[in-house]
């Protein structure tokens, strides 16, 4: 007799819930939360591949997000092309940047990678903010009114919701796929002990590089989706450190290195963020980040494995058996 909570059914249940959410909650506000949730889950899941599974903690993932966000709008404002044209360009540029950062830093310890990511993200943010070609400090605008579906400019939240959901599905399916392959085992071996992994013949540098490139590509797509949805991008909303913070905290709160960790993190944090913004008005965003900082410190100090690991530890074993994958 299979429990209703068997892993496969649980995933099916989750998929159905996500598919039905905007139908059940048809208010604009609820759908807006749904879209924000999906976007946070996509970018945090992308971060999770290198930051969670491989244990290489990037605190500058906004550089890939920003590239992904800028490219579609840049192509639109230069040539009037559909924003879709910029998405693959963003992916290619993000992977190239990942190689530029990964090649030198993956020879050194993980701290060095973290420092490099934050410095490069900041370098790009300042650079973009002074470069007139990409709109400098003002940023870029997307199509105001859609010429067709290919402009990805919809008046309703609904198309965004299902596009984002499809992308989230692709990211999670890819992660689940590599989780079971040799590549996934390599990643976890590197996270546990790089030296031990190397002595057992794991190609450490190449594996880390591939994880970063894959993560960068997905993060870039997340940025493109954000730009398509907002129709506007500036240096801070694309490359700002808070963009990176959001990815890190969403993944780490739920459980870094766990498939559904980012989903759980986004499920808790996005409503929390919207609530603080609504209650405290303009000053709320500052308060949100004080809260984020506090949460990150508490996770690091008491529960580095995130909420999923806490759950596994406190929930009695006989319940847990049904959840074991």
């Amino acid at each position: 007799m299979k429990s209703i909570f068997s892993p496969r059914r649980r995933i099916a249940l989750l998929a159905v819930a996500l598919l039905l959410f905007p139908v059940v909650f048809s208010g604009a506000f609820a759908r807006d939360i749904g879209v924000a949730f999906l976007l946070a889950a996509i970018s945090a899941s992308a971060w999770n591949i290198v930051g969670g599974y491989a244990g290489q903690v990037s605190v500058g993932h906004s550089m890939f997000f920003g590239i992904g966000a800028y490219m579609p709008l840049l192509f639109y404002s230069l040539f009037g092309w559909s924003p879709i044209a910029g998405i693959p360009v963003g992916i290619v540029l993000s992977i190239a940047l990942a190689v530029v950062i990964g090649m030198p830093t993956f020879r050194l310890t993980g701290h060095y990678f973290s420092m490099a990511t934050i410095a490069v993200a900041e370098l790009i943010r300042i650079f973009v903010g002074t470069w007139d070609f990409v709109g400098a400090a003002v940023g870029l605008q997307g199509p105001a009114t859609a010429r067709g579906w290919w402009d990805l400019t919809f008046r309703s939240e609904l198309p965004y919701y299902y596009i984002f959901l499809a992308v989230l599905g692709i990211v999670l399916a890819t992660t689940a796929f590599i989780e079971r392959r040799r590549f996934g085992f390599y990643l976890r071996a590197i996270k546990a002990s790089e030296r031990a992994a190397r002595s057992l013949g794991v190609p450490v540098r190449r594996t880390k590089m591939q994880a970063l490139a894959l993560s960068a590509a997905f993060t870039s797509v997340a940025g493109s989706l954000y730009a398509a949805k907002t129709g506007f991008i500036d240096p801070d909303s694309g490359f700002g450190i808070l963009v990176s913070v959001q990815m890190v905290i969403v993944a780490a709160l739920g459980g870094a290195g766990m498939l559904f960790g980012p989903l759980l993190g986004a499920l808790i944090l996005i409503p929390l963020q919207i609530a603080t913004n609504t209650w405290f008005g303009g000053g709320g965003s500052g308060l949100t980040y004080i809260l984020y900082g506090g949460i990150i410190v508490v996770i690091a100090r008491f529960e580095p494995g995130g909420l999923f690991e806490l759950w596994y530890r406190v929930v009695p074993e006989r319940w847990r058996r049904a959840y074991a994958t």
Partner: protein
Amino acid sequence: MVAVQVIVGGLLLGAIYALFSSGLTLIWGMMNFINFAHGEFVMLGMYAALMVVVWIGGGPAIFAIAAAVALAALGVAIYFSLIRHVTRGPMLAQILSTFGLALLLRYTAFWIFSANFVSLPQNAMSGTVNLGGIYLPIAQLVAGLVAITLTVALHLLLTRTTVGSKLLAVAEDRTAAMLMGIRPDRMQALAWGLSAGAAGIAGALMATSYPWSPSVGETFGLIAFVVVALGGFGSVLGSLYAGLIIGLIQSASAFWLGAIYKDIVVYGLFVALLWLRPQGLMGKT
């Protein structure tokens, strides 16, 4: 003459960079640990100086020492409440702990002090001095010289005294140091106190000549990374040279390229270093 002025000004600013960066490199050398909140310590040092001036009053010597003591206490408190518990944990916890701390301190500062730029009121160090045709603000001159002295003092403390030997012993081998009767916890707490104290006094020195807002913490934190990467991780003397070089590069590029490019040049240098000489000027591989 203008060129000389730019060079001297850059070196004096670089001396302050060297001082707070030596705090970052000390922690890295001692514990193999990167403090992402280091720039926030500098920023808090600036506000500590301001609060002392406004509420208690007193000259530069008083508020600089007060800022150093306040930040050293904060550093020790952070070590015992947070850092000690994460050093043995996974890498994720180590990086997230100070990264989260940086956010917490930065946005709390925004909340309390607002995002407006502030500066210290007139004090004994206001005014300029004419050194053979070079006009220098007294504050900048004094701050730069004090910063160099303190950085050299920190270097001597680490290399010439018993306490320094104990600190280095713990850095070398924690267990062996423990067997020699050294308490690693105390030494590491001391390192955090020294590190944050150096950041605090550097902040107070800088506050005498530059206006600031809570957002400067991020900039200084990144500058400290660049200085430490250039000077070599764990080398105080290296960060002294690197700090002076970075200050020089920054003031030269601000003057000849334009003020908005000074950070681009410095961060670009960091990326170039990553590729060419990741161990820094004086670092070991």
